[in-house]
């Protein structure tokens, strides 16, 4: 067998540079930190809450309709139902407004309008949730009382929490849906216009169905954001666990319980301290499932246009 000739003298094999390899290894180490964060989240939720599962049976935990730590009654259902109720209320507010805004921005608005409006919507998206909580408590709830939906004595309620969380996720739905609408090829629109379709017909029969997977994903992601939302619901919906679906009642979500317990400085090792890690694990699992559903939805229903 003949050996290949060695490279000509001018082209030396690249020298091995240990310093550079070291730098690359450092960069790789930084990249693994992000994995460690994920591992750390799962580890701490499981490990710190481990004692809880020893003293409270998982069956009672997942089927209990009462959350009353003073009597050692830990039923997660009222908290979970509160989180879901508020997320659904938020979606009822945000889905029409968000999708409507997205259709307007992508199909009707001119370039200039879009350039002005989009940063304003982003401002709403970046609004600290404590501000929305204050807004719910000081403005939305009184307004709801004025128009008679709430009684004068109902300060804390799920409805105003749902409305402000809805406001929070409007920009999320609007901007993700708009991206999906704009990804629909112009040729499809022009074909429809050529056949005499009006803008409404193009938007509702051509663009919307074509972008459906993106729109669905935006709604699902917004729901996951709404379920994990904390300060607005803590301030507006109150701190009273309540197993009901009536939006005018006060409710305490999973996130609100975590805030209430940690505000009271629960010491490590107590059942109360462990309970917030247990419900934190439930919250983490729910949001992860929703995110996975969003990814699967996009993959399953995505239409690729060439």
């Amino acid at each position, binding site marked *: *067998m003949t050996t290949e000739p060695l490279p000509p003298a001018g082209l030396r094999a690249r020298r091995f540079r240990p310093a550079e390899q070291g730098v690359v290894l450092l960069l790789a180490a930084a990249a693994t930190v992000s994995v460690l964060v994920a591992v750390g989240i799962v580890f701490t939720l499981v490990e710190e809450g481990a004692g809880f599962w020893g003293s409270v049976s998982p069956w009672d935990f997942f089927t209990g309709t009462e959350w009353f730590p003073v009597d050692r009654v830990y039923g997660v259902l009222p908290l979970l139902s509160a989180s879901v109720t508020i997320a659904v209320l938020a979606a009822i507010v945000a889905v029409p407004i968000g999708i409507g*805004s997205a259709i307007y921005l992508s199909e009707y608005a001119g370039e200039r309008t879009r350039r002005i409006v989009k*940063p304003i919507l982003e401002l709403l998206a970046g609004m600290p949730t404590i501000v929305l909580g204050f807004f719910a408590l000081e403005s939305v709830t009184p307004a709801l009382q004025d128009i008679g939906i709430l009684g004068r004595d109902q300060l804390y309620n799920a409805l105003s929490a749902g409305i402000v969380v809805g406001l929070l996720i409007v920009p999320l739905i609007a901007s993700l849906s708009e991206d999906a609408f704009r990804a629909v090829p112009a040729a499809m629109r022009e074909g429809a216009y050529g056949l005499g379709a009006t803008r409404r017909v193009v938007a509702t029969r051509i663009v919307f169905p074509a972008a459906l997977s993106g729109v669905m994903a935006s709604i699902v992601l917004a729901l996951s954001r709404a379920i994990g939302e904390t300060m607005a619901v803590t301030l507006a919906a109150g701190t009273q666990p309540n197993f009901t679906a009536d939006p005018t009642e006060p409710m305490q979500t999973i996130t609100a319980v975590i805030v209430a317990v940690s505000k009271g400085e629960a010491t490590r090792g107590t059942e109360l301290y462990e309970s917030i890690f247990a419900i934190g694990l439930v919250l983490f699992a729910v949001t992860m499932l929703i995110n996975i559903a969003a990814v699967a939805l996009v993959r399953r229903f995505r239409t690729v246009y060439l």
Partner: protein
Amino acid sequence: MATTSAPVTAEIPAPRPLARRRARPGDAVFHAAVLGALLIALAALAWLLVSVVTKGASALTWDFLTSRTSSRASRAGFLNALKGSVVLMMITIAVAVPLGFAAATYLEKFAPLSRDELRVISRRRRRALADRRAAGTIGGIRLLVARLGVAFSALWARIGPPLTTFVEINLSNLAAVPSIIYGLLGLALFVQIMGISKSLLAGGLTLAVLVLPIIIIASREAIRAVPRSIEQGAMALGATRWQAVRRQVLPAALPGMLTGTILAMSRAIGETAPLVVVGGVAFGTALPSLNPLNAADEPLYAMPLQIYTWVDQPQQGVWGPKAAAGIIVLLVTLVVMNLVAIWLRNRFTRRW
């Protein structure tokens, strides 16, 4: 032949005049509806801003900004919160930015790109090893090292690409984890396991972990926006990959990376939930020092935490204006940060 083909004059119907587009009520209604949706969103934002400003304007005085917090509403100021937020930002930047930039650089430029590419590298190394052995230029310990190198590159070709995919999925999931979960992580990891007191340091580290995925994702996009030809040009002139990345790609991507960092910081500065979980609500009125090295001993103060404490007070008649004034300060900070980010993007972003 005689039959002259008489021109057939068919009766071509005159084209119907194009019907003038009828005004359809449905179109106008739809247009109004989608425009209305957008206007509702903007009106809600306007309502929010107006209600905050009308409630807080009277309490927003110079004294409010320069006096420390107090248990009496008439004297309570925002200085603790301002200083606390500054220290928190310093810690968060110091931890999250180097880690985030390094991770983004690795993932975008050095992480295993594709299985095929790695297989080619591994095959080439194996051939080079065989050649040099045949030529008798390699032996002893060097042979062992070379063999290890070949084995490692073959292994990396197998596990590297799936690992990269895993890290990428992991990152996008982390960005969607609710912020309060990061608070629980901070409480367990920094406060309970590592034994840092419930201080500015614990809060800053928690916020750093919270924004790390956001910074990595934004920085990766900025690095990706630099065309490959820049890097390839540098490498063609003899630069190693690291030299090309360090001297050509990173400087070109830096404005974009900084923009992403500022946006991530504007997220961190408004976060309340993780700080409440990590640090509880601070009592006392001692002013924190601005030196981040003392942060481990300073009580956890931050603008959103202070606002939360005030909103949570029972007598909203006196505390409400204080909270609203604090919100105005926080919102002005956020708008300024966003404007800087937009300016940076417009000023330094190059079109390739």
